[in-house]
């Protein structure tokens, strides 16, 4: 079992944190994980990406050359980071920001991620956690228990309830979409 994830969007959307949380959830499940990310000015302005590989066997090469799951949360990121997807890839888009992706034949699920974060948690800030919920609901790459624990270990004190709500909302919109 080996799954490649790429989370991409705009700097500030919390996608690198989302990548770290997903990798930590995998470790909690007893799996192995490697996480890497784009750095520098690119990671702040403009588009940013985090990559996670989850496997039950040792992971050597740590970059994703062909995402099994691509999360795109901005049109620019979709333009830049969807080119190496194909029919076997799942592309999850934030429908608020993304219209086109560069892999026509990929399986595509459009979700109102940021919209839901605003509706359910009151802030678009929680979009990354909503997205994580959706990704896990659609891929079953980690257990929801581990995901919740990994989220709660990472987020600031006092925001636990809002984050739990965001996760639940993520599961919900994913289930509704399929």
């Amino acid at each position, binding site marked *: 079992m080996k799954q490649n994830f790429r989370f991409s969007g705009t700097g500030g959307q919390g996608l690198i944190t989302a990548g*770290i949380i997903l*990798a*930590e959830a995998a*470790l909690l499940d007893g799996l*192995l*994980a*490697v*996480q*890497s*990310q*784009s*750095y*520098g000015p*690119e990671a702040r302005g403009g588009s940013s990406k985090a990559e996670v590989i989850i496997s039950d066997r040792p*992971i*050597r*090469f*740590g*970059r994703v*050359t062909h995402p099994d799951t691509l999360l795109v949360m901005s049109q620019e990121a979709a333009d830049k980071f969807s080119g190496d997807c194909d029919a076997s890839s799942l592309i999850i888009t934030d429908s608020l920001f993304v219209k086109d992706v560069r892999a026509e034949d990929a399986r595509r699920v459009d979700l109102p991620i940021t919209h839901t974060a605003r509706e359910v948690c009151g802030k678009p800030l929680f979009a990354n956690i909503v997205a994580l919920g959706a990704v896990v609901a659609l891929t079953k790459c980690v257990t929801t228990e581990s995901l919740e624990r990994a989220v709660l270990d990472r987020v600031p004190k006092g925001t636990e309830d809002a984050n739990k709500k965001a996760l639940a909302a993520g599961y919900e919109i994913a289930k509704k979409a399929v």
Partner: protein
Amino acid sequence: MSRVLLLQGNQAVVEGAIAAGVRFYGGYPITPSTEIAEGMAKRLPQVGGKFMQTEDELAGIGTVVGASLGGVKAMTATSGPGFSLKQETIGMACSAEIPCVIVDVQRVGPATGQPTSPSQGDVMQTRWGTHGDHWLIVVSPSSVPECFDLTRRAVELSEKYRYPVILLMDEIVGHMRERIELPDSYEGLSVPRRKQPDTPPEKYLAYADTDGSMVPAMADFGSGYRWHMTGLVHDETGFPKGTPAATKNSQDRLHLKLRDHEDDIVQVENYRTDDADVVVIAYGGAARTAYDAVDMARDEGIRAGLLRPVTIWPFADRQIQAVAKKAKCLLVHELNCGQYVREVGRAVRGLVPVDLYAKYDNEPATPEQLLEKIRESAEKIKGAK
């Protein structure tokens, strides 16, 4: 008891240093090594150690040498531009035989280059960066757990041989996050300190080889053993001496004390090399690509293997020659235009062809790309038959 964590390579270096007993860090922030400074700033005072953000790279390594004179295990970290600046003082640490660890998390160079992109362009600089004739110890990790282990080993070797040791990393390993299992307590993980004098202070000679190991005992400043450190050529008393004999003796020591302990210092990892026709040689972050490429080559029937130098310097002549005797071709893969490959060529002395896959476009090679090169090398051997 232990805990499983997802850590960056740079963070694992911090933990390895703390575990090894490093209690002083002086350095200047520079991408992609800054997380090491940040981690040390947080962790060192927690264990009673001290961290200093110095005014520049020169002061970073300078404070490290000073702290080491005081008997404290000391470390600094930097990247290419800062590594260049530190060279003169690294040379003094060689000459005066001062234990310390210098981490170089490589980025694309020369000059400012690309601060956040991987490269292995400093591999020869670690060997020949400072002026003058000397040997040096360099070790290079390929994974996050190995960052922890090799940082400890770097401290251990520096204390054992009374010499600077360089931990050569690259952006790939420094920044990636990976699973690591760390013990809850670092008790028992601290590495032995430098040899202490067993003579009374009035008989102590700071550079005398008293036990034939070529490693003199080093007393701490302030311990009652008063001695003199100098960057000038010196004799066993530690005081400057410019005679041809004193000069030769001092140069000999800076070579022989490592050369004669190569068995203890030099480590490589052999991965599927036993029956391999094509042996890839790769180190640091580039080796991660190589494991996968070797497995893929095996899947298509090519007998491939990987020799990964863990100790970069002294060079693993013997280990590479041993592999070259059995293999039909060596393929060096490194993230530069071809540096280490020259040493490999020198070591195998025409025994087998040495191919090179040099990747220097700021991205690591993918396993598929390296596989293609393995296929080409394998094809060439067939043609040669």
